[in-house]
């Protein structure tokens, strides 16, 4: 069934599930690898960064959608989208950091250090760019952002768990660190390939 024939709610759910599993941003589109390799040594930190990324991805996808559709398209400035998107993302993370710093010290201590990392996380800019390839409405774009963020969160949490165990075993020297992590992600990606074809949008 085509997306356009479905009810808004059904299409949003479908987009959400497909962005999380079949089109997993880390496994299938390779985005957010840098911070994933750097931060996924422990489960706690993986969860913290994953949550922060999920939140920022969902909100900036919606914000960027509004900016693109209602500012750039009417003014025929589509080619400026890269600069505008990165500025929106940077400004939003800065704002979130300031709000968290003022309101909740506990949350700031656990989440705060990750926020600067988020601006340079390509998963977030990537979601905003991929969103433009499809004729989404506002809520569909938001569902896509939320699903993409959840997919990244799932992936980094799983990798963090596996790495925590694997750090205790003896590996060949050259394979330690990025090498073995890439192999883990490769095997997980094989699993995620199994989801593909389940949903076609």
């Amino acid at each position, binding site marked *: 069934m085509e997306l356009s024939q479905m009810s808004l709610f059904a299409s949003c759910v479908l987009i959400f599930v497909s962005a999380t599993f079949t089109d997993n941003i880390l*496994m299938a589109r390779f985005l957010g690898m840098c911070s994933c390799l750097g931060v996924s040594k422990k489960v706690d930190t993986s969860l913290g960064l994953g949550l922060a990324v999920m939140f920022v991805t969902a909100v900036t996808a919606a914000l960027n959608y509004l900016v693109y559709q209602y500012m750039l398209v009417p003014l025929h400035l589509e080619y400026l989208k890269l600069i505008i998107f*990165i*500025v929106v993302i940077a400004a939003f993370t800065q704002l979130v950091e300031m709000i968290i710093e003022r309101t909740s010290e506990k949350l700031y201590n656990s989440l705060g250090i990750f926020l600067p990392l988020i*601006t340079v996380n390509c998963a977030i800019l990537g979601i905003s760019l991929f969103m433009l390839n499809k004729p989404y409405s506002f809520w569909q774009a938001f569902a896509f952002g939320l699903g993409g963020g959840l997919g990244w969160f799932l992936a980094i949490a799983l990798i963090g768990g596996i790495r925590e165990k694997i750090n205790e075993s003896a590996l060949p020297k050259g394979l330690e660190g990025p*090498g073995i992590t890439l*192999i883990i992600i490769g095997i997980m990606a094989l699993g995620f390939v199994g989801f593909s074809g389940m949903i076609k949008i």
Partner: protein
Amino acid sequence: MASSYGKILKDGLVTENPIFRQVLGICSALAVTNLVTNTLYMGFGVTFTTALTSFTIALLRNYIPVRIRMIVQVIIIAVYVMVVEILIKALAPDVHRFIGPYVGLIITNCIIMGRAEAFASQNKPLPSLVDGLANGLGYTSVLVAIAVIREIMSFGTVLGYKLPALDLWWHPWTIMVMPPGAFFMLAILTWMARARLVKEVK
């Protein structure tokens, strides 16, 4: 000065290769390496952006206030990436359809920001240009190596040309064109590069 330029080039290409040594810029390294043609365009884009960004930031290094330098750097990078995107769109619309979003993602490629921070903000414009060029080429060379292997294994072609006699005994290996193939390929190359490094240190 000639020898120091040579050293900068060698550092970027081999000894301090951005992908193996610094583990930067992995995202796009994986995404665009299923076909050699895509990889060459991407490599061109990254080299162009890294070189010119380093040059510009080195020119302005005494005028950018330290507190806001990140945002200034991001905007400089974004301007050059926009130029690259428009260039690729005009030169190769077919390639652009596939790697379009990844070209935009050069902005968040950590190699560029990394070189701007580590080298260009402390050095003169010309050495910075060479440094950016060297790192871009180092990145491109690794990508092309991965892409050649992946394209041969999955389609039996290089740059779209069929290799002779390969189809007699080689069965196309679909998994290599899909994401897992990219992860395994990069993992093996990183392993090889690091194993050699460990030996050298000993």
